[in-house]
């Protein structure tokens, strides 16, 4: 075999090679070209006697087979002599197979010190001596292959083999370190644990089995591990009877006792199941990996403490299972009614929160807390909580609430919530737990962040972190800049609870009575919603889309029917500090509160699928399946996202004011955003009817024609409106799909502009052929052109020369005029549907040389 693994030029030492495994290894290596030192003391397998016969026989067998070998009769304890034999005979040593061994099997009770020592000396000390003598040669030549021989008895234990087991596992550890030390000098060290019928196993295995476990089933692994092409090192392999497998260490994930917490035998016993559970395990392969969990615990530092209610170490940072929820316009409207919007149906200032067909329908942003609190309540009802939080709902009060929106809530959405225990504070008597929930939209983009701060009565006192204590959002010492009030309805709590907070405290007079309330109380988050709405009304003119965040502290109880007065102080363009009072009792019910605003309406980052959905409520009267201007703007957003170069090139903020039905859109090509309403100061405003807009985007109406006919009013930068030609490139298919309510194809051709033009077949050849025919038939016509004319036709390209009556493909650099035009325009000229002068003025017909030749392009006409 030309490509068999060869050992030519290599010198191998095999100890204990007179019989069994050693002999088999030696014969195989020699057969494959290695020069072999066949070492064997010639004694019995229990260490008695000494003879040269066994080694000589193997050498003779090798030489007879055409190989090279020398015999060595030294004890492995005299390893240096064995290695010297190799150097003397062959000048080097490349391979050491530590195979020699003896047995002194006896039950431990009867085992003598001699039994122990002898087994140690042959297996461990012998392997050491031989390897130590060969090591400097291997290091020097930067090449070496060492195999140690271990045994299942060492790995797993075996009756009567305490000494042997000790020795056999001893070489495993020995080899593991040699493998590390040998690595940089290309010395590869591995260990085998063979099972084979040999003199040594005769005593422990049944005879018939021994015969089928031939040494020849082990030697191929040894040879491979010794081959120069093997670089795997530090391995331990079980081998025999045709099986080869590799061993590694496995460790349970175990358990960790936080430093500073109680740690004694009782705790070990308590955690025994965890400590011994291989259901969760790992496979450390180095000391570093072995140390990892230990170091982690040390680095984690002392425990954060806790008590029977709260185990801070367990609870803090706990990630709750992900949950989902969905809402739609109805939920938003119901919520808005629940927090007092549109109390007077004739007052339309809040109608955009409560009427989904309103032009500017918006989600009241404080709604973002509702699905989160509903989730917490549902989990509580199911008894689910974070580990280490061992208290019931009866102990808790909603202390503070922070709600932040990354952008306006879409009119409907499926939400995914990821919650964690963000902070735990020891307030002495009570404790404070802050749960943070991040809410993501359907596309996985972060939409809202809520922090629910709960006060847990009687759960503090473990001496832990007290948390921030500074008073925040304290109103300045002056009259409020705005005050708005709303009388709540007697049934307000009953209305609000329909948004999901089912707690009977807000509905059942008996239940409320049990808590010491004369009647059901209003939800704190209901007052929160009132306050948020008041701030928006006072400082954004009710445009909820600029809402960024709200932070409140719930200071006192409100009863349905009371009047909520929100006092507001404008701290900056983006920040309003406020508090809420109950008018009738002049009590502060919400304190330390502030709303932050965005200066501009924030937009969704990944607008790929639904750029304008943040505010794209269905337009009034929009029939399903019909493409609406809203869908067109969504598609424009998608197109612009896919083609960022368009925005980069145009760089203008356009505003579209559409009429019948009315809607307003901002195409911000500075930020590459499309959104409903006026989200940026427009540089160019276009006012036109919805229908004309649709016609324009379909390419059925020319914007400048609309402009000159007065149907399109452009203010601002008129010229910028000329950069809107990309509007005709919007993918209609995606819009149609969106209109039909199905997802657009995953990879829609983004725009006609990118797709190659339909492979129109060239019309120029026909035009010129017809011209040639006509000129041939009518010399007077040929004279009319009066000059040599070169036509350069584009898309598909082609060149023709018309010279008198001759029409030929090709070029003529001496032509009087060079006309460049598209195949399509040429065909149109021939058909009489285009006018050469108009084409020229539009720049579609370019003429170099004598322009007047182009006056006579009537000759192209087919008639």
């Amino acid at each position, binding site marked *: 075999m030309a490509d068999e693994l060869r050992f030519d030029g290599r010198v191998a030492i095999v100890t204990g090679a007179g019989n069994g495994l050693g002999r088999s290894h030696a014969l195989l290596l020699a057969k494959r070209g290695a020069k072999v030192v066949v070492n064997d003391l010639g004694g019995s397998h229990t260490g008695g006697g000494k003879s040269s016969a066994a080694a000589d026989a193997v050498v003779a067998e090798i030489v007879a087979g055409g190989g090279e070998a020398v015999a060595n009769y030294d004890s492995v304890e005299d390893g240096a002599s064995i290695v010297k034999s190799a150097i003397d005979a062959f000048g080097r040593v490349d391979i050491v197979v530590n195979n020699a061994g003896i047995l002194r099997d006896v039950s431990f009770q009867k085992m003598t010190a001699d039994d122990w020592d002898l087994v140690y000396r042959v297996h461990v000390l012998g392997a050491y001596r031989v390897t130590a003598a060969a090591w400097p040669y291997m290091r020097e030549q930067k090449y070496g292959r060492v195999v140690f021989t271990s045994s299942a008895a060492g790995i797993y234990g075996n009756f009567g083999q305490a000494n042997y087991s000790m020795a056999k596992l001893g070489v495993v550890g020995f080899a593991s370190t040699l493998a590390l030390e040998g690595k940089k000098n290309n010395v590869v060290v591995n260990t085998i644990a063979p099972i084979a019928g040999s003199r040594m196993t005769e005593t422990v295995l049944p005879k018939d089995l021994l015969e089928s476990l031939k040494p020849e089933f082990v030697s191929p692994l040894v040879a491979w591990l010794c081959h120069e092409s093997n670089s795997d090192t530090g391995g331990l392999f079980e081998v025999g009877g045709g099986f080869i497998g590799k061993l590694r260490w496995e460790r349970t994930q175990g358990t960790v006792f936080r430093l500073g917490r109680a740690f004694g035998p009782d705790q070990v016993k308590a955690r025994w199941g965890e400590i011994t559970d291989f259901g969760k395990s790992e496979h450390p392969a180095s000391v570093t990996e072995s140390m990892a969990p230990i170091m982690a615990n040390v680095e984690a530092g002392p425990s954060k403490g806790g008590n029977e209610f709260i185990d801070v170490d367990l609870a803090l940072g706990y990630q709750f299972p992900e949950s989902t929820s969905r809402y739609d316009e109805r939920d938003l409207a119901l919520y808005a009614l629940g927090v007092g919007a549109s109390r007077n149906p004739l007052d339309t200032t809040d109608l955009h929160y409560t009427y989904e067909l309103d032009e500017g329908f918006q989600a009241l942003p404080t709604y973002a807390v509702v699905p989160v609190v509903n989730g917490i309540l549902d989990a509580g009802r199911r008894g689910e909580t974070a580990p280490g939080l061992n208290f019931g709902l009866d102990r808790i009060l909603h202390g503070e609430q922070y709600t932040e929106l990354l952008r306006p809530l879409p009119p409907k959405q499926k939400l995914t919530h990821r919650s964690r225990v963000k902070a735990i504070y020891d307030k002495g008597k009570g404790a404070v737990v802050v749960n943070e929930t991040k809410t993501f939209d359907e596309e996985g983009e972060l939409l809202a962040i809520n922090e629910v701060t709960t006060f847990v009565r009687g759960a503090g006192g473990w001496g832990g972190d007290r948390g921030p204590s500074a008073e925040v959002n304290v109103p300045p010492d002056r009259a409020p800049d705005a005050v708005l009030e709303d009388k709540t309805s007697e049934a307000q709590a009953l209305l609000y609870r329909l948004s999901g907070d089912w707690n009977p405290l807000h509905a059942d007079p008996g239940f409320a009575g049990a808590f010491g309330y004369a009647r059901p109380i209003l939800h704190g988050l209901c007052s929160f919603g009132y306050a948020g709405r008041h701030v928006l009304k006072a400082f954004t003119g009710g445009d909820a889309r600029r809402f960024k965040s709200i932070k409140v502290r719930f200071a006192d109880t409100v009863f349905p029917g009371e009047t909520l007065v929100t006092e507001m102080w404008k701290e900056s363009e983006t920040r309003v500090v406020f508090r809420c009072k109950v008018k009738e009792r002049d009590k502060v019910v919400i304190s330390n509160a502030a709303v932050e605003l965005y200066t501009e309406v924030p937009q969704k980052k990944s607008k790929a699928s639904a750029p304008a959905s943040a505010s794209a409520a269905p337009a009034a009267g929009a029939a399903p399946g019909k493409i609406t201007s809203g869908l067109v703007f969504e598609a424009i957003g998608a197109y612009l996202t896919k083609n960022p170069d368009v925005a980069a090139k145009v760089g203008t903020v356009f505003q579209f004011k559409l009429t019948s039905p009315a809607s307003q859109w901002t195409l911000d090509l500075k930020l590459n955003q499309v959104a409903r309403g006026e989200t940026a100061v*427009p540089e160019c405003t276009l006012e036109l009817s919805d229908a004309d807009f649709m016609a324009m985007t379909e390419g059925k109406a020319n914007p400048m024609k609309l402009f000159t006919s007065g149907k399109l009013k452009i203010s601002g930068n008129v010229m910028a409106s000329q950069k809107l030609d990309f509007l005709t490139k919007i993918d209609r298919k995606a819009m149609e799909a969106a209109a039909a309510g199905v997802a657009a194809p995953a990879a829609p051709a983004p725009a006609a502009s990118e797709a190659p033009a339909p492979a129109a077949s060239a019309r120029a050849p026909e035009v010129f052929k017809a011209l040639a025919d006509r000129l041939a038939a009518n010399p007077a016509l040929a004279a009319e052109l009066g000059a040599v004319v070169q036509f350069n036709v584009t898309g598909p390209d082609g060149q023709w020369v018309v010279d008198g009556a001759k029409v030929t493909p090709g070029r003529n650099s001496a032509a009087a005029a060079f006309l460049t035009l598209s195949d399509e325009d040429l065909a149109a000229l021939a058909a009489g549907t285009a006018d050469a002068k108009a084409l020229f003025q539009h720049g579609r017909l370019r003429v170099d040389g*004598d322009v007047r030749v182009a006056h006579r392009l009537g000759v192209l006409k087919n008639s």
Partner: protein
Amino acid sequence: MGRRVNVIGVGMVKFAKPGASEEYNVMASKAARLALADAGVPYAEVEQAYAGYVYGDSTCGQRAIYEVGLTGIPVFNVNNNCSTGSSALMLAKQAVEGGVVECAIAVGFEQMEKGALAAKWTDRTNPLDKHVGVMNDAQGVNQAPFAAQMFGGAGREYRWRYGTKKETFGKISWKARQHANRNPYALFGETLTLEEIMNAPEVFDPLTRYQCCPPTCGAAAAVVCSEEFARRHGIANPVYIAGQAMTTDYGSSFGDSMMKMVGYDMSKAAADKVYAQSGLGPKDVQVVELHDCFTANELITYEALGLCGEGEAEKFIDAGDNTFGGKYVVNPSGGLLSKGHPLGATGLAQCTELVWQLRGMGDKRQVPNARAALQHNLGLGGACVVTMYRRD
């Protein structure tokens, strides 16, 4: 007709690229002081000032003139697009002509931004919307700078009508650079070959980059006065304004002709009025400063001013009748194309050049025997001012 109005002092600063100039007030006050020094008249004698500029907040004129003196005189800020400078001059001239004042100064300046002209006020009706509409009907609109589309479109219309070669437009740039090379005040003094001009990137067919004037910063000024004032100050034989007329758009601007949209008829009518006022015809003129914002406009304006017959511009150019040795020297300064075009300053820089020419102070670019000089300054939107200067 009122009194004869003399141009007794002129001055200008060397034009510079946007970003490389001094601020408007510095440039303008320098130009005003140069003009006053040229006239030999102290600022205290100036009774009114007309300050022209296009880009800038209100009362930049005062801010600039205050650096010359704080005498409390009326200062009028004038904004008339590219014809701003000569509009300011015309108001100063009218004030003297009508006997309101004896001496007035017109200062024009502009501190421009880089890049092509663009609308500044985008929240209101664009004053050029009707012009843009004409263009759209005639040739559509693309993304080239709008002025290049308008004047280039006029060039297309002319080419179609008369079969003019593209190179003929390029030759105007070639001539402009030849002239500018002799003018230390020009922004682009290096000459170009016709090949370089024609091979430059196309801005809008038929215009290549070198056929479009650059955005420029600069200032220029002129002091005008009555005969009596000149006599009192011992100014002998000054250059005077023999005729001056401004026209704005006629109905023909909004028809279907690009040439007329960009002001062909305004130019023609203004020139005719000036010829009638001055009693001089084109043939009496030796030197012309003509509004060559684009080569196409210079070409069609030869005909509007009657320097050659209609359709004869190519022949006129090929004969060299627009440069030294020909019938006229058009734009000895290098024109807007090479000297630069700071909108508000241009009209007064043209005036400065022509006054120097008539005084024989044209240096290396002096037009021989210059006795009558014609100025043409045009702004889209629109206004065209044509002025005939003379020196006895």
